[in-house]
């Protein structure tokens, strides 16, 4: 009698665990089924296209080969740090331009392959070829160095061609690193190229088209779709015990109790893990539903949606998502400002270097419509000055600070200026 009671007492937690396991697995399955019903992607495989046409297969090969040839070297990293600093200050120390030119000439083969790939339609990388992905970063840096070098040398034609290749590389990097947000240095570089050189209208037109491809009104929603798909993929796939636990910020807890990586630990912790995963997936779905609003409400929709959630989600979920969403909106504003700046330069080339009196003059020949400022919901602003002009968005403070692009503060590692845009010096 006593033994049977003891056995029953021992089995009660097992039954509770089993029931909890079932309930959580079923709830998670239901959440995933709802996503599928809405026609939204569940995994990154649903989002990532694969090359099927000849052109796509060729661009796949060129980008991989270029990335392999541009593989990282420590001295380049140090050089790139100094270049970035010079770009920020707008001051180029003596010798730095020569060093940049030397580095780019060292990697001429990689850059030639990049130039071949740039005009081709990128359809994605073939399965099993993602080992090239990390090398896309040094390739992008190298392309940036070349653009700078050519711009400083005043070679407008080749600088815009290099800029075009850089801009075309951005969706490739995004394909390989779907939830990683690198700063849009190449868009910032549009300002340098337009200020330091005098490219012809045909070259500008190509850059304008590449920028138009980057101008995606649904960029925020697309990023969150990728974020959720990556979370589900790593949570339900092979990365269950690793990356998603890290995402959920629970690695420390699992380490402390000695359960991380242990089979028993994974088994016991599974319902809790699936509960956390489902909660986060549901949170992301709620946040995404708020991203259908028009600008400028959409610009702050992520923070607002998080604040409206009850119970409020952990700060570890909210903070990075809000920060990234701000970065995406900043990037979009910058891309749009760059599009307008390129259109203005095209206008000037064809109107004896005269400035348009207003941005509407660019429509419809150089732009289909004046792009909307995501922070105001109104068209972007133009400010003409004695030696330069600026195209800009009101920025996160949603105030016109007369095109003040100086660094205002760092918000979680990201630069923040009062206004967001580009200033182009007259030549």
């Amino acid at each position, binding site marked *: 009698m006593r033994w049977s009671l003891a056995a029953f007492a021992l089995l009660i937690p097992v039954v509770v665990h089993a029931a909890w396991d*079932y309930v959580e697995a079923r709830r998670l399955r239901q959440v995933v089924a709802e996503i599928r019903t809405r026609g939204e992607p569940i995994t990154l495989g649903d989002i990532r296209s694969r090359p099927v046409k000849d052109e796509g297969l060729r661009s796949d090969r060129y980008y991989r080969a270029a990335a392999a040839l541009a593989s990282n070297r420590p001295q380049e990293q140090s050089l790139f740090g100094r270049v970035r600093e010079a770009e920020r200050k707008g001051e180029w120390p003596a010798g730095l331009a020569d060093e940049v030119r030397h580095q780019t000439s060292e990697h001429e083969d990689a850059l030639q392959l990049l130039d071949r790939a740039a005009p081709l339609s990128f359809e994605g990388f073939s399965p099993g070829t993602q080992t090239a992905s990390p090398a896309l970063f040094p390739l992008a*840096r190298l392309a940036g160095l070349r653009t700078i070098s050519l711009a400083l040398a005043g070679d407008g034609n080749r600088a815009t061609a290099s800029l075009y290749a850089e801009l075309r590389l951005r969706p490739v990097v995004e394909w390989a690193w779907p939830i990683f947000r690198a700063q849009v240095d190449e868009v910032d570089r549009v300002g340098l190229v337009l200020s330091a050189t005098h490219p012809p209208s045909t070259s500008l037109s190509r850059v304008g088209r590449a920028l138009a491809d980057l101008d995606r009104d649904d960029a925020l929603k697309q990023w969150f779709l990728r974020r959720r798909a990556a979370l589900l993929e790593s949570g339900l796939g092979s990365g269950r015990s690793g990356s998603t636990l890290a995402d959920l910020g629970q690695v420390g807890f699992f380490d402390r109790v000695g359960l991380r990586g242990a089979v028993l630990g994974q088994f016991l912790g599974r319902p809790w893990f699936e509960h956390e995963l489902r909660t986060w997936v549901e949170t992301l779905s709620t946040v995404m539903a708020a991203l259908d609003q028009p600008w400028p409400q959409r610009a702050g929709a992520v923070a607002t949606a998080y604040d409206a959630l009850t119970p409020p989600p952990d700060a570890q979920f909210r903070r990075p998502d809000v920060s990234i969403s701000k970065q995406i909106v900043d990037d979009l504003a910058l891309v749009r400002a760059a599009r307008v700046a390129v259109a203005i330069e095209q206008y000037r080339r064809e109107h004896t270097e005269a400035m348009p009196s207003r941005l509407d003059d660019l429509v419809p020949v150089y732009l289909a419509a004046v792009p909307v400022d995501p922070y105001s919901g109104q068209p972007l602003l133009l400010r003409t000055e004695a030696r330069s002009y600026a195209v800009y968005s009101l920025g996160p403070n949603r105030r016109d600070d007369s095109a003040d692009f100086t660094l205002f503060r760092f918000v979680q590692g990201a630069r923040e200026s009062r206004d967001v845009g580009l200033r182009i010096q007259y030549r």
Partner: protein
Amino acid sequence: MDDLEHQLRRYRPVGPPAELRARVVAAGRTGAPRRWAWVPSAAAMAAAFLFYVLAASARRDLTAELTKADRYRDVIVRALAADLGGGEEASHVAARLIELNEAADAAAGERGTALNVEDSWRD
């Protein structure tokens, strides 16, 4: 006849003692709880087993969502097989090459990608 009956009655076995029935019934009563005591435990085990099986089934559905064949993979395998000369053997080789590359990607991803991203941020 009556005499005969009388004689026989003298040798008829007597009935069981009166307390025997009580003893037997009592023994039966004490044996039953010993058997039934394990039923709740068995039921608990069955319930746990059932829940784990149901959970595994739900999880299988989830995994199936994730492991749906990449619709482009076949296209790539066919293209590679054609590059290798076509035919059944080329198809096997192409499929194997893609598998090996995917495995290499997964291993490389676990080893080095985080480091590389960190490096790229550090600039």
